[in-house]
């Protein structure tokens, strides 16, 4: 028995069956979480977002254009929600005292908050390994990269979307995707070198 396509699962969900939606969630939750975590630079934010993304899919599935593929549509919704959230955070820069520091803490790490910094201004007492330093630098550089460049780099490098689908997800011309990808790599290289020099 062949595996049903995403589009078939969505059609069955719209017909009132409960299982196909769960299958879609299991199929894409990890990949979508990775995208959102890299795009926002914040694992907690990514988890909140992914729940909202699938809730919207569940509620607005009928608005899906069946002539399109499901996956780019899913990532379009996710990118839009992430952008909206990031912009609203920028408009309201104040954060609660126990808020996680964006781009610093990640999955599996000890969560660092403003409270931690207030208690210990010397940053982490644990000596970072070279690999850990590298990881932190990459995260910081990516999180500080302009949004329009970061989204192209993440979709292209980490998720391997074809240029055409990236253009579809972001709603920009194909040529713009390519030029942004070049700019993103150049920006990443320059910023990473600068970040390493700062630490030396």
């Amino acid at each position, binding site marked *: 028995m062949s595996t049903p396509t995403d589009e078939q699962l969505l059609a069955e969900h719209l017909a009132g069956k409960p299982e196909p*939606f769960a299958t879609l969630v299991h199929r894409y939750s990890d990949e979508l979480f990775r995208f959102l975590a890299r795009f926002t630079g914040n694992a907690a934010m990514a988890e909140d977002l992914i729940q909202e993304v699938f809730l919207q899919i569940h509620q607005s599935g*009928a608005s899906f254009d069946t002539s399109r593929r499901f996956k780019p549509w899913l990532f379009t919704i996710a990118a839009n929600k992430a952008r909206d959230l990031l912009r609203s955070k920028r408009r309201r820069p104040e954060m609660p005292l126990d808020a996680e520091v964006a781009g610093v803490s990640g999955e599996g790490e000890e969560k660092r908050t403003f409270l931690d910094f207030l208690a210990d201004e010397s940053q982490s007492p644990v000596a970072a390994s070279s690999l850990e330093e590298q990881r932190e630098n990459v995260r910081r550089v990516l999180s500080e990269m302009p949004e329009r460049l970061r989204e192209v780099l993440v979709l292209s490098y980490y998720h391997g979307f074809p240029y055409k689908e990236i253009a579809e997800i972001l709603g920009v011309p194909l040529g713009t995707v*390519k030029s942004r990808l070049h700019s993103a790599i150049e920006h990443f290289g320059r910023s990473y070198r600068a970040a390493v020099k700062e630490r030396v």
Partner: protein
Amino acid sequence: MGERSKSFDDRLLDLHLNRLSAEETEQVEQEVAGAPETAGRSRALRDLLKLLDANEVQPPANLADRILAHVERRERAIPFSRERERTAARSGDRVAGRGYSFGWRDLAAAAACLVLFFSVAIPGFNKARSVSQRTRCLDNQQMISSAMTSYGQANAGYLPYSGYIPGASWLPTNDPQVPFASNTQHVFRLIKQGYLPNVQVFICPADRNGRPLTARDLQALQDFAHRNNNSYSFLFMNRPQGVRLESLQSGPGRQTVVIADRNPLLPPSGVPTTMPVQAVSANSMLHDRGAGQNAIYADGYSGFFTRPTIGVDADDIYRVGSFNSYKGTEAPLAPTDTFLPP
């Protein structure tokens, strides 16, 4: 950077992003191997992209189950939304984005809201319009009243007066033996002699049939051509010597109504074809089908009155005495018998 090298950069990037076919990959790798400078650039790009792998992200455990639990929890909170989407999907409707598909319940609710709105708003609107029309109607009367006073002051103290015709009828009549003496011909002098700015002031805004005279008609006429050219009734003037202002400025004369909205004695359709005209005590028909009338007294007092018995000693201003039948030749029975003919 030239076009050729730019194109190569694209292909080099695609090589490291694994976006090339096997054939293209082999071709680019050969180009890279053939030039030390290009090989260096390729290595630098590979190393740079490899750094990105350090940004590992590990999804939380049971993420899918947590998502499904969240969706179920939220859907339970908004069950209607789910039902709406499902219904739309089953019926083949397309709901665009956050769009909304109207059902018969929504239409019924919208219709009920509209009915409620209009049932509340329209009476209120009509009432406000009526009040506004009454006010503007009274403003017109006050302008005419002021013009009459000005005329009297400039004409030996007499109100506008076009003469006396003994035995004349203030109603148009078919009897050749009874001349017609319009009671409005007197105030018409106010227009002819420039005491009023225009003929529009003789039209009450509440008068649905009101139609002002044209400027061309005005030159040739000595009276309103049609009863629709004037919405008001004036103090009876077919007297041997007219009416002196002085007589209205002291004693019971001060309580004489000089102007009021049109006398209801004539039927709305126009001049009666048969005589006599039957009359009962009634308000002017200009406002809300007989709700009352504006009136101005000789002493300047004015207002909207809901009964016509506002003359001296509660005299009906629209009737001679308490006559119920009129031929048109009736005249006030006494100085205190106010009468404003149609």
